[in-house]
């Protein structure tokens, strides 16, 4: 009846995961109880959970990401403290638990931290920047989000029911085959990633269609903000790469569930094929994460330098070059499997070529600041921190792309340092920059700058300490994924990195405090005009937070920087644009398709993990039924009357006019 599930699945003998899991469960239950008791549930259900508004969905993505980043960071704390204790000693985390921690850390950080953050930012900002009302398929968007959340939920369930994979964030066979991983850990991995992967793929389809087919009048390709370009490239990569992951994990699942022989080491199976297919997805994946972050930096650096992005077209070219190249380099993750000189050589060169367009981007950001008026706000600090540290991480990437160098650095702590160097500095800093940059747009008040800057300084110092030490450990021959070690030479560096993590933790704490403080001081931090940073693209042309319909009338775009052109004209003429003729607006109705689908997806996943076949069948039937019910709806849109549109827009116009006049008086004084 319950498949493999029994009471044994709860790790009663293991205090650490149990206590951690219990705390998480208690917190979640507490939050849920509070929501219900305080009567917020109907509001949440109506306005958020069933929302199909791209802004709300974007915010929920980012929230999910923030929570999961904290979970991932606590895993990192566990790992560093284990290492600090595990010199010639077993430490406090036995291998079977430690192995789950680094696997969960990698999975959570990449799939449920970095991915949702980037997708959330794109969801939030891209339609606004394009000057349109929503994404192409609003309900699908909600499905995507909830499927991602479902995957995240499964990973966290594994903490208390059963175990998570002990095979790293890429479950390489034969270790991940049933013979060597008989537990449910790898199954949790497979189903969590498959479910969230479908969500990611759908959101990729959604955003690509939005960008290619829905832009404000006059917004031609070469007038799109840079962030839209990088979002386009990133989502095209999602569409091209995620199906490979889906197929690969399906093959692994068939091996594990039905005795197939794709990657086994007998009956003609080929375990090297897994690495090949996995990295054919895995490498594009890192650019799926990095590209939107590059877009955020482009927006931030240009805004806070008070200048257009330098060499915009070069940037576009570089973005698209990275997009195509990223599909031609995947072998650099297994130079040391022995493919031979020719294959290694070709993939080494294609890998290194990516340094050219990336370098162009770095230099163009540099020249965006040149001749500008740089304001050191929190988003700008994160961007500068990125530029300073990313070049090092990129260079070590190029180093690893040289096969003879990789022969001694592969799988070492040097590699760990490389990928954190690029992922933390590009993806994480990019996420934080975007978060601080668009927060006032989303909520109508700014984040507290003091705590934001504190978070930045702690974050970047800790980061340099931790991963500087990792680089050196790699040169001392230390490999990754070690649970304990007995080499005296490594010890000082491991202790240094443990110290660095504490510094980073201070940064994390500041980041949390920043949010709390900002919410409490929201009245002082209020952004009334909708344009707190003197922005240049269309999201700043509407109120903060934007109305559901984003724009009272779709803005007409002239010139490369849509809003800057409008604003400059307003400043010259000392008057706003003429009021548009207000017309009623049709918007999609909120509906629970997404969350219901995700509910069934979670059921399916959980049932498959524990071999509860009837439950899985039930889940599939439920999911299909949801689709049919959704497809059977007759009214999918509601109308917002012109009077409301006018009221909302006039309020915003009034504050803007005030700001405009205020600015001119200041200039005159």
């Amino acid at each position: 009846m319950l498949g493999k599930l029994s009471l044994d699945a709860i790790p009663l003998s293991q205090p650490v995961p149990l206590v951690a899991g219990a705390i998480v469960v208690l917190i979640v239950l507490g939050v849920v109880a509070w929501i219900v008791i305080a009567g917020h549930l109907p509001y949440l259900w109506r306005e958020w959970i069933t929302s199909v508004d791209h802004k709300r969905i974007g915010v929920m993505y980012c929230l999910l990401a923030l929570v999961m980043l904290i979970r991932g960071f606590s895993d990192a704390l566990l790992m560093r403290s284990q290492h600090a204790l595990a010199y010639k000693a077993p430490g406090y985390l036995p291998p079977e638990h430690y192995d789950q921690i680094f696997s969960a850390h990698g999975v959570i950080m990449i799939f449920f931290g970095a991915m949702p953050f980037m997708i959330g930012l794109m969801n939030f900002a891209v339609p606004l920047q394009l000057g349109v009302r929503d994404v192409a398929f609003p309900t699908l968007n909600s499905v995507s989000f909830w499927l991602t959340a479902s995957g995240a939920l499964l990973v966290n369930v594994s903490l208390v029911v059963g175990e998570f994979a002990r095979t790293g964030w890429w479950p390489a066979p034969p270790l991940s085959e049933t013979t060597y991983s008989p537990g449910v850990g790898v199954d949790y991995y497979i189903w969590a990633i498959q479910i969230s992967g479908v969500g990611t793929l759908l959101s990729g389809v959604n955003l690509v269609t939005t960008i290619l087919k829905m832009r404000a009048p006059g917004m031609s390709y070469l007038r799109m903000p840079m962030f839209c370009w990088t979002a386009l490239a990133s989502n095209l990569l999602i569409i091209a790469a995620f199906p490979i992951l889906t197929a690969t994990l399906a093959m692994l699942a068939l091996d594990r569930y039905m005795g197939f022989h794709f990657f086994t080491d007998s009956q003609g199976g080929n375990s090297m094929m897994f690495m090949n297919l996995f990295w054919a997805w895995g490498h594009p994946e890192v650019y799926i994460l990095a590209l939107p972050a590059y877009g955020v930096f482009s927006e931030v650096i240009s805004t806070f330098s008070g200048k257009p992005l330098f060499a915009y077209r070069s940037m576009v070219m570089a973005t698209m070059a990275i997009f195509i190249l990223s599909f031609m380099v995947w072998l650099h993750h297994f130079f040391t499997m022995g493919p031979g000189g020719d294959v290694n050589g070709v993939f080494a060169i294609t890998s290194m070529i990516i340094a050219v367009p990336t370098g162009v981007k770095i230099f163009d950001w540099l020249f965006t600041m040149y001749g500008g008026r740089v304001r050191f706000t929190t988003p700008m600090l994160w961007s500068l921190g990125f530029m300073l540290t990313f070049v090092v991480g990129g260079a070590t990437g190029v180093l690893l792309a040289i096969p003879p160098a990789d022969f001694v650095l592969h799988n070492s702590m040097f590699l760990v340092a490389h990928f954190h160097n690029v992922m933390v500095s590009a993806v994480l800093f990019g996420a934080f920059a975007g978060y601080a940059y668009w927060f006032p747009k989303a909520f109508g008040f700014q984040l507290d700058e003091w705590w934001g800057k504190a978070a930045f300084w702690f974050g970047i110092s800790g980061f340099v300490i931790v991963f500087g030490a990792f680089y050196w450990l790699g040169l001392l021959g230390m490999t990754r994924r070690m649970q304990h070690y007995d080499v005296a030479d490594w010890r000082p560096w491991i202790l240094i990195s443990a110290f660095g993590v504490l510094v980073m933790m201070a940064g994390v704490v500041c980041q949390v405090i920043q949010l709390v403080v900002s919410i409490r001081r929201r009245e002082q931090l209020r952004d009334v005009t909708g344009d707190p940073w003197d922005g240049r693209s269309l999201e700043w042309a509407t109120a903060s937070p934007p109305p559901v319909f984003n724009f009272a009338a779709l803005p007409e775009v002239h010139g490369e920087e849509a809003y800057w052109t409008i604003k400059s004209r307003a400043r010259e003429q000392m008057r706003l644009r003429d009021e548009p003729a207000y017309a009623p607006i049709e918007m999609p109705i909120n509906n629970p398709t997404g969350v219901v689908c995700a509910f069934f997806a979670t059921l399916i996943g959980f049932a498959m993990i524990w071999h509860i076949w009837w439950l899985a069948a039930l889940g599939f039937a439920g999911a299909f039924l949801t689709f049919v019910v959704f497809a059977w709806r007759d009214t999918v849109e509601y109308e917002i009357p012109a009077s409301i549109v006018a009221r909302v827009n006039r309020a915003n116009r009034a504050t803007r006019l005030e700001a405009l006049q205020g600015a001119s008086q200041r200039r005159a004084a």
Partner: protein
Amino acid sequence: MPSRRASVSKAGAIVLVGLGLSGCQQHNLLDAKGPVGAAEANILIIASVIMLVIIVPTMIATLVFAWWYRASNTKARYRPDWAFSGRIELVVWSVPLLTIIFLGGIAWIGAHRLDPGTPIESERKTLEVQVVSLDWKWLFIYPEQGVASVNELVMPAGTPVRFSLTSSSVWNSFFVPKLGSMIYTMRGMVTRMHLMADQEGELYGLSSHFSGDGFSDMNFPVRTVSEDGFGAWVRQAQGEGTRLDRASYAELAKQSTADAPRRYGSVEPTLFDGIVAQTVPPGPGPSAPGTVPGVRHKGGT
């Protein structure tokens, strides 16, 4: 390998170590103890230096531009419309491109010259060593000498060694940082690698590909000895008597951690080929929970 290169790399290593990082020499792979490692360290250092030449000025420029053009600096000229310069774009594309062409050349040549399959030239006859990664220990078979050792690699300095590697179960990667190159060990397949030690001493070897719960203990001492010393070691091993055949191998292949080094006095000659051809049963993987010393299992099955 030309020794001049090795000395360049040593100089580089010493420079790096000189940056206040002394005391770590013992494991530093930049200070390699064999021609392969030395050449790789050399490439690593040269490539790093070349890239630093671009990276460091870029970082400095970032700081300088950001600081000089800060909003409060009234001396800096504000050029709000300056957004393109053909000359700058030319430089910006061509400098990385040229650098990459150069580094790409190094990568291409290095990928061939230092491919692990490439033999090392020497007057001395190449020693054959067969390597089997087990859960979780290393087995080294010396087919010409007819001996084998567990968790201890002994090799004569100055003699090229040809490793043929496979695995009894999951993947591992054979790596002696100070000798250079690593390579995967995979069941049913043979990878090949050539290494040589320059001098006598004791080095550290380990697995660099995660292989499960006992992975952290998959390290082994590498003793590089004189030719006579090697002969003596072989004789000593032969004297120890126990034989490595299919039966004792099956015993060995079971999961265990942190096994002390030990030797086999004779080896069934076709054992390695049998492991590769999978006529010898694979390592059995985890047995019932709690039966493997040092490895506890958590629920879930």
